[in-house]
């Protein structure tokens, strides 16, 4: 904390003209001035922390975007996987993820932070160890398997952005960008869900209790949790101290509260960085 306070202080202290850009980016990343911390420390998964630093948030989002870009890069390179009619769709997804990687990388660099190397992603769930059990079979040979994984990773992405909005509040520009990347991820998810439905899956364009769950082995539960765990929630906050138990208020007929899947569908839910990291860790 003291180091961060010092850096924040430095960021706010007038310096020579030549130092101005440096001061600006320090101010920009706010608490993430922890750029001075060793990479090994800053790259630790956020565990118990309920609030991450701005840098933690940007680093984790970068990891997510790199995972998504790798998924689509490998899928587009896999002969015969993606039908010709959908090639452009996945090229668009890849383009967006690549743009997000550029944005997040530049944000880190602008703050003088070290950008970690891209890990070697393994979409089988074996974590680059052949002896490990396969969690996600035939991702690049079976289109339905690929789409199912893409849907889970996109949903997971929407929910992680939702969390990290709160960790970049000190930076107006970054705050706006995180919101705007989130809604791009949501459109990706909705599209992938639509593609799955067109191939016979029971799935809506939004997480719904009516969706048929994607079957995964227990060891892959972290991904399912990150993608849709808690989406059934229907109690949303209406003030700093109160939540609205929507089920009991919105659909009251004949004095009976009526459960409707729409109550949960109407709100996407955030996930913590710890839940997200557990899912990310399945892939490298």
């Amino acid at each position, binding site marked *: 904390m003291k180091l961060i306070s010092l850096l924040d202080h430095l960021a706010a202290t007038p310096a020579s003209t030549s130092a101005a850009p440096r001061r600006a980016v320090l101010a920009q990343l706010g608490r993430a001035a922890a750029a001075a911390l060793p990479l090994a420390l800053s790259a630790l998964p956020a565990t118990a922390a309920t609030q991450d630093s701005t840098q933690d948030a940007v680093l984790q989002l970068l990891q997510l975007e790199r995972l998504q870009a790798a998924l689509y890069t490998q899928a587009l390179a896999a002969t015969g996987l993606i039908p010709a009619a959908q090639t*452009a769709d996945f090229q668009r997804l890849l383009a967006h993820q690549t743009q997000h990687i550029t*944005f997040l990388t530049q944000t880190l660099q602008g703050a003088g932070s070290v950008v970690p190397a891209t890990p070697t992603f393994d979409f089988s769930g074996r974590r680059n160890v052949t002896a490990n059990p396969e969690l996600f079979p035939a991702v690049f040979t079976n289109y339905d398997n690929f789409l199912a994984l893409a849907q889970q990773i996109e949903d997971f992405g929407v929910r992680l952005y939702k969390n990290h909005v709160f960790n970049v509040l000190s930076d107006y520009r970054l705050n*706006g960008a995180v919101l705007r990347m989130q*809604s791009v991820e*949501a459109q990706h998810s909705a*599209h992938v869900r639509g593609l799955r439905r067109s191939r016979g899956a029971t799935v809506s*364009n939004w997480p719904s209790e009516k969706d048929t769950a994607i079957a995964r082995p227990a060891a892959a539960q972290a991904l399912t949790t990150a993608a849709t765990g808690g989406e059934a929630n229907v109690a*949303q906050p209406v003030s700093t101290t109160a939540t609205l138990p929507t089920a009991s208020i919105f*659909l009251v007929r004949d004095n009976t509260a009526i459960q409707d899947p729409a109550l949960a569908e109407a709100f996407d839910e*955030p996930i913590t960085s710890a839940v997200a990291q557990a899912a990310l860790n399945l892939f490298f």
Partner: protein
Amino acid sequence: MSDTLQPLHTPIKRRSFFQYAGATAGATALALAGCSKDSDPAAIVPVSSISLGTGDVGMLNYAYALEQLEAAFYAQVVKTPAADFLSGELAYFTQIATHEAIHRDFLKTAISGAGGSLLPTLTPIFTSINFSSRASVLNAAKTFEDLGVAAYNGAGVLLKSQTYLTIAGQIVSVEARHAALIRDLLSPGSFADDNQVDATGLDKQMTPTDVIAAAQPFITEKLDASSVGK
């Protein structure tokens, strides 16, 4: 489906509307009410606009205005479905109509919870939409959904309360999902295209005043978003 969703509150009472609209609008309305056609023309005041308010309550009223518009639109779509809807499309519209009605009623409750002055129920103008035409309905839906996403994206940075930022974040991604579905129904693969997402991969955002200017042709009441978020 959507007509099973009853509004949470009785229609707003005149007195509370005046409280909401503030002294200016109230005084203007009273002045107008007191005018007869024989009055001095100089005394006739232009129809005053309804300010959405300031700060976070202004933001909530702003979102409430948009959700009212969307909910009313989809309710009409479901009530008078176009004959040329393709199989399954009415079901999509029914689900979206329910989501928007929930957003509307949720925001209404949140505004009350915030102790804020609530925007009155708006009177939509849908004369430019041909509800018997699938294409017209889908194009209008695309307009509303894209506008909604851009509005929430522009609003997020103006919100002061983390609670309301949570709400906005939880709603905007559902709106984005709607937008992608509607776009794909209009033209498969047109989700998140270059009209909506810029060259840096960021979704469109708009200021409250720009959004309200775009929405105003669909709303009878004149809305003023100039102090929203300030």
